[in-house]
């Protein structure tokens, strides 16, 4: 790399800046400020100062030493590198095909064709005609996956009858979490940084295996309307960032974020990343992609759990009982009870039973020495019945996950606490309350983050923080003869608590576990054993703990949601008073943008009764 190479680029640079002046689109005359270039380098304006910093956290991503902070020097370095003589996989043009394409077009460079064997082979193998954004719906039994997950599927040309999308490749961006980090460590590092984010390429069937079979998450496939040129640009950029580290953050720089960047590169001007504020919830990012008219078609792929629940529920009652008996080993797969059925009925019972046994061995860890012989017997019986199609797949939900209510909620309410009137303002940045409009969300599930409830008492002009919720999770999944999920809840934050004389804001931690049972299609009964811990120096011993119970009814439909029940808590450390509470909460949904809500609670604590009610409006946006 002699001096001549240094001088060359400088001259080109001057020439280019001159050209760029003529181009009104090129970032106020400076090509390195062109949005397309900033996008390719993942540059974002610094919060402080007027510089830029790239989100890429890998020195190997940059050609210039100052690349991370200087889009200008990176552009200069790239420009000179791609014009260097030579070739082969290590040449800048082979390492940075997307940058090369943009610079070549922007500056009208005449570059001789170059052969990039590795990139060429990669591209040929991926053989991509269209790109599909796949959304793995939230899965409420694992905090790390509650927001859902998105990845891209690279679809080969469909005119070929041999094409099978299970074999298509996928591009995914994920935290490279050490396999044995616990959920808690995962959450911590995910929020505060500490995991490198990596881009991986895997066949779609591996993704289905993970999300659909093991984690029981339905998949929504949104085919993007990118043309071949845009697809090629996306792949070229994927090649550039393929092995490069971008630090992973749970809330903003997450899986969904990095994919939005790829779409932005593919279709400059889309500016999906501009939609991202403090967080990028995958279901929200899907909404943005839909809103920007990037979708040509949508396909639903139910998870193994959804499918088995559907095929069991579509059996008549007597056959459901038979399936449960076979699965539990009371009736064998070749028993007379089954032989008496018609061929098609028998096939359906065997199919549903096998899917159920397989689901149970994955989800509930049914021991292999029971599940494997039973599975084998079921399949062998089934193989003797010809010309009966497999069970029908569950119908696509009328409302997709991206069509549910928006996740940011603002509420204004008026109410009374023990004859004191108040106005309450609540901000809930994410994500879903059990009484919010249920369409597009799991029924019986709740996940709220960073909710803030502030109250203004009108009698003495007092503004009080009523509650600050860190995280609140509830999962009420009904049990039946086939499935016996645990209902559970966990939450922490700060809340007003009654010390007997005053209401003080105390940090709390609460949890519970129990069961839920379906009473009618949209109504369930739940019973939860609860535990509470509060810490505050206003409490007699500095903290208090309670064990308790919460029994209630939940009804959810698209017009209204209702929850009513009774709670009791026995405080055992400081107050040693039992607390009883009857509650009723209802929301009336006006479309998916607004809900009117009302709450009433009557409480008996410290040998006195206290009522609280409030009513108001939730707005979702």
């Amino acid at each position, binding site marked *: 790399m002699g001096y001549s190479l240094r001088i060359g680029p400088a001259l080109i640079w001057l020439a280019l800046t001159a050209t760029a002046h003529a181009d009104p689109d090129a970032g106020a005359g400076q090509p390195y400020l062109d949005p397309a270039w900033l996008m390719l380098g993942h540059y974002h304006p610094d919060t402080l100062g007027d510089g830029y910093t790239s989100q890429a956290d890998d020195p190997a991503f940059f050609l210039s030493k100052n690349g991370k902070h200087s889009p200008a020097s990176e552009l200069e370095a790239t420009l000179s590198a791609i014009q260097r003589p030579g070739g082969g996989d290590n040449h800048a043009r082979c390492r940075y095909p997307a940058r090369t394409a943009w610079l070549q077009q922007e500056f009208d460079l005449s570059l001789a064709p170059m052969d990039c064997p590795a990139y060429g082979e*990669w591209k*040929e*193998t*991926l*053989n991509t005609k269209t790109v599909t954004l796949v959304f793995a719906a939230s899965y409420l039994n694992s905090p790390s996956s509650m927001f859902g997950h998105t990845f891209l599927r690279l679809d*080969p040309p469909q005119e*070929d*009858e*041999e*094409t*099978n999308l*299970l*074999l*298509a*490749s996928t591009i995914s961006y994920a935290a490279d979490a050490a*396999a044995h980090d616990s959920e808690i460590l995962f959450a911590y590092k995910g929020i505060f940084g500490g995991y490198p984010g990596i881009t991986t*390429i*895997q*066949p779609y*069937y*591996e993704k289905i*295996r*993970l999300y659909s*079979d*093991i984690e029981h998450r339905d998949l929504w496939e949104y085919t993007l309307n990118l043309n071949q040129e845009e697809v090629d640009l996306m792949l070229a950029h994927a090649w550039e960032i393929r092995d490069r580290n971008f630090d992973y953050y749970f809330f903003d720089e997450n899986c969904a974020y990095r994919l939005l960047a790829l779409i932005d590169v593919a279709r400059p001007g889309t500016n999906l990343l501009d939609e991202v504020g403090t967080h990028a919830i995958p279901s929200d990012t899907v909404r943005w992609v839909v809103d920007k008219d990037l979708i040509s078609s949508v396909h639903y792929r139910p998870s193994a759990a959804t499918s088995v629940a559907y095929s069991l529920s579509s059996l008549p009652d007597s056959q459901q009982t038979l399936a449960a008996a076979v699965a539990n080993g009371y009736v064998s797969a070749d028993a007379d009870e089954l032989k008496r059925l018609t061929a098609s009925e028998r*096939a359906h019972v065997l*199919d549903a039973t*096998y*899917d159920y*046994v*397989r689901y149970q*061995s*994955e989800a509930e*860890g*049914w*021991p*292999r020495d029971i*599940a*494997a*012989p*039973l*599975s*084998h017997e*079921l*399949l*062998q019986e*089934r*193989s003797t019945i*010809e*010309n*009966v*199609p*497999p069970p029908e797949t569950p119908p696509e939900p009328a409302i997709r996950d991206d069509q549910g209510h928006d996740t940011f909620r603002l509420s204004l309410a008026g109410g009374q606490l023990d004859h004191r009137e108040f106005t309450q303002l609540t901000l809930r940045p994410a994500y879903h309350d059990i009484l919010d409009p249920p369409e597009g969300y799991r029924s019986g599930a709740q996940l709220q983050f960073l909710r803030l409830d502030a109250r203004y008492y009108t009698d003495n002009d007092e503004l009080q923080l009523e509650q600050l919720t860190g995280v609140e999770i509830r999962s009420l999944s009904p049990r039946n003869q086939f499935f016996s999920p645990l209902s559970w809840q966990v939450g922490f934050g700060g809340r007003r608590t009654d010390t007997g004389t005053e209401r003080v804001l105390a940090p709390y931690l609460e949890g519970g576990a129990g069961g839920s049972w379906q009473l009618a299609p949209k109504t369930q009964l739940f019973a939860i054993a609860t535990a509470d811990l509060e810490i505050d120096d206003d409490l007699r011993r500095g903290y208090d703990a309670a064990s308790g119970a919460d029994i209630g009814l939940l009804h959810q439909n698209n017009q209204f949601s209702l929850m009513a029940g009774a709670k009791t808590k026995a405080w055992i450390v400081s107050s040693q008073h039992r607390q009883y509470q009857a509650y009723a909460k209802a929301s009336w949904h006006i479309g998916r943008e607004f809900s009117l809500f009302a709450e009433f609670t009557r409480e008996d604590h410290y040998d006195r009764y206290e009522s609280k009610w409030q009513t108001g409006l939730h707005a979702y946006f």
Partner: protein
Amino acid sequence: MKKLIAGAILLGASSMAFAQPGCGVGAMIWKGQSGIAPHVLAATTNGTFGNQTFGMTTGTLGCQTNAAVQSMAMYMDSNIDKVARDMSRGSGENIDTLAVLLGVEEADRGTFRKVLQDNFATVFPSSETTSGEAVDAIVALLEKNESLSKYVAA
């Protein structure tokens, strides 16, 4: 197309290396986890599926030089229980995937599905059948069939 798909599968499993390319699924050496033969039915994945852990096909496949068969074997490794399920029903996307990997033409697909369903017990004689053994059995079955033998020719 077939070649590309076979290539895609091999590319997808990027964490593995071949001891001797083209000489048998049994000769593949997998980085990381090895030695666990996925049994066909139920509970094969608990605890074994994580960060890019693949099972290992330990079939008795000799020196199978057919890349399509190798791709099928790799697919079977990850999806054996679903393949078994589709085979017992005589249809399904996983059995279609096998057909694609082997390059079975549209005209022969019906025969392909029927042969596999009719011979379920031959391919999976017991619940202890490994995916490698199932691959061997499928290859042997197809070899015996007049219209399907061409797809597994070495």
